[in-house]
């Protein structure tokens, strides 16, 4: 009798793993195909997709697609632009949103309840519904920069950065985190005469590592993967981000699939590596958006 139950348990365990692995295959195969294909000539790539060879590093493997891709498009420029826009936005977002959340949680000031609920209400507005009017605004907004006063934000870095610095979700994440910090700590600092700015910089922010990571990761994913907005506001090659740069490969009569796979690999694998290295933090970040 005992052996039967243990056999049953073994079988059940085996089935569980089989299901888990089958599901994993569904999630992995396109990405595996992408990476493997990036090393194959286009003709072999198309031929290989008829068999399991599509997912295996076999045949005529080389870096030719990568060299060709770099010749076809200024990939270095695109990557630089994406990193710059994403990096600057994330840093400014962390500063601006944590500062606002600090004011909302710790300081009493008139009007804060109303303002906070208005900001929170914007959570229901998808960016896609405001991009069209924002496009018109961006074409007419003034700016004072190195060249003095100018009108119009189209074809600049700032049009890709400034509108996305502050958002309700980031502020909300910081507010949720700050609420759980001990109020007595802040009050003690006030009794000792510390300024709000000092408390923010020296007390609260050093304690906020987890929420900073969460907000940074979510903003990073959103910014790096932006597509529609840069498509509308950036025409110049020199400031184009990676997702829009894809057009160099797909807007061809004969799509060079080998090069496409190389380009996709270049813009995706660093993010995947970053994710795999910090997967716990990534997943915890997404999980925390569900806390209400």
């Amino acid at each position: 009798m005992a052996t039967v139950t243990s056999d049953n348990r073994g079988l059940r365990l085996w089935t569980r793993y089989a299901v888990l692995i089958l599901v994993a295959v569904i999630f992995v195969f396109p990405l595996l195909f992408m990476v493997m294909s990036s090393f194959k000539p286009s003709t072999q790539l198309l031929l290989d997709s008829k068999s399991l060879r599509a997912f295996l590093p076999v045949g005529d493997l080389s870096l030719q697609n990568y060299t060709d891709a770099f010749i076809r498009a200024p990939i270095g420029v695109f990557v630089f632009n994406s990193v710059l826009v994403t990096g600057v936005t994330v840093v400014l977002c962390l500063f601006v949103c944590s500062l606002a959340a600090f004011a909302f949680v710790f300081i009493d000031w008139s009007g804060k309840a109303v303002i906070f609920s208005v900001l929170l209400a914007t959570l229901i507005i998808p960016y896609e519904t405001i991009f069209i009017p924002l496009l018109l605004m961006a074409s007419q907004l003034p700016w004072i920069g190195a060249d003095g006063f100018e009108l119009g934000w189209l074809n600049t870095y700032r049009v890709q950065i400034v509108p996305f610095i502050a958002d309700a979700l980031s502020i909300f994440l910081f507010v949720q985190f700050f609420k759980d910090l001990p109020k007595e700590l802040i009050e003690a600092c006030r009794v000792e005469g510390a300024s709000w700015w000092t408390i923010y910089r020296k007390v609260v922010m050093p304690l906020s590592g987890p929420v900073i990571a969460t907000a940074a990761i979510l903003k990073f994913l959103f910014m790096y993967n932006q597509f529609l907005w840069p498509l509308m506001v950036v025409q110049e090659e020199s400031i184009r981000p990676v997702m829009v740069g894809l057009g160099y490969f797909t807007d061809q009569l004969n799509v060079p699939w080998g090069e496409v796979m190389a380009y996709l690999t270049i813009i995706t694998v660093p993010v995947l590596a970053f994710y795999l290295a910090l997967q716990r933090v990534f997943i915890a970040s997404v999980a925390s958006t569900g806390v209400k």
Partner: protein
Amino acid sequence: MASKLTRSNRSGWLMAFPGVALMTLFIIVPFFLAFAFSLTNQRLASPNAAEYVGFENYSDLLGLAVFTLEPERDEDGAVLRDDDGEIDYPRLRNFTRNNPEYPGLQGKREWFSWQSGDNRTVVLASDVVFMKALVNTITFVFFVAPIQAGLALCLALLINQRLRGINVFRTVYFMPVVVSIVVVSLLWKFIYSPGDGLLNNVLGWLSFGAFNGIDWLGRTDTALPSIMAMSIWQGVGFHMVIWLAGLQNISPTLYEAGNIEGASKWQAFRYITWPGLRNTAVLILIVITMQAFALYAQIAVMTKGGPLDSTQVLVFQAVERGYGKQDISGGSAISVILFVLVLAISLVQRYLTREK
């Protein structure tokens, strides 16, 4: 209490100001501008000032008319038929183009029609492409939201087991979430290739050659479902993680109590897990609905709205007008319609999943 210590209008305003100002300028103002522009004839770059046009943009988009065509008859009143035996109808054009007797049909085009007896009833729309976009978007949300939420819950339950190495699977399932939807769309465009495409080949092996290749994105009946399947594949990991957080918030003592009472696995799910997930369910449905309504990159990369407008969606239409044709007012009107839909469906979901 310690009100004096924490009260400071100046510091509060100063510290909140950058965030509040940016959100006002770049989210709240454009939101209201969308409403304002939709009532004008605003263009992206125009020497003429915009004029107020009332609800013209909306009637240009949403205008509908139903019209019954009666067959052509000969002197005896018998129905005329063409050589193939099909009933002869007067041309719709005669009614929709400069016919003063039918002002309601002016400029409208046939959207769809059906036969009733000898008569043909035609539904006409001012903007047939927009109507298709509207229907496709709602269809997309209607299928994707529940299926993606349901699959995500299944995955979360699968991942919530105590098994060695379970974190590896969680990591893998979540992986497509960090990959850009643009990249995913292009990959799947290749996978969905007609003839010898990857998916056709895989289905061919699984059915031992019985499966005939399908042009997934090239057929009007498979294009939108193909895009739905891919969107779910990409997004499901995100909501799996949120379900998982909800699952792990449920106190284990409840399950122990259930065990003592002799509850079956299904009963435990039905009476402990599911009620514990109510708030999570509301949140997930609303988030997926919002994301699904905003569907754009998949269309832009994979089908550009085709074939025969079978994958036209609202955001794609809004961009085509507002950006492509520089018609800010028309694009804004579509944006407003989109927002009203998102809001309405979120409220309905909240109402349906309320505490009873």
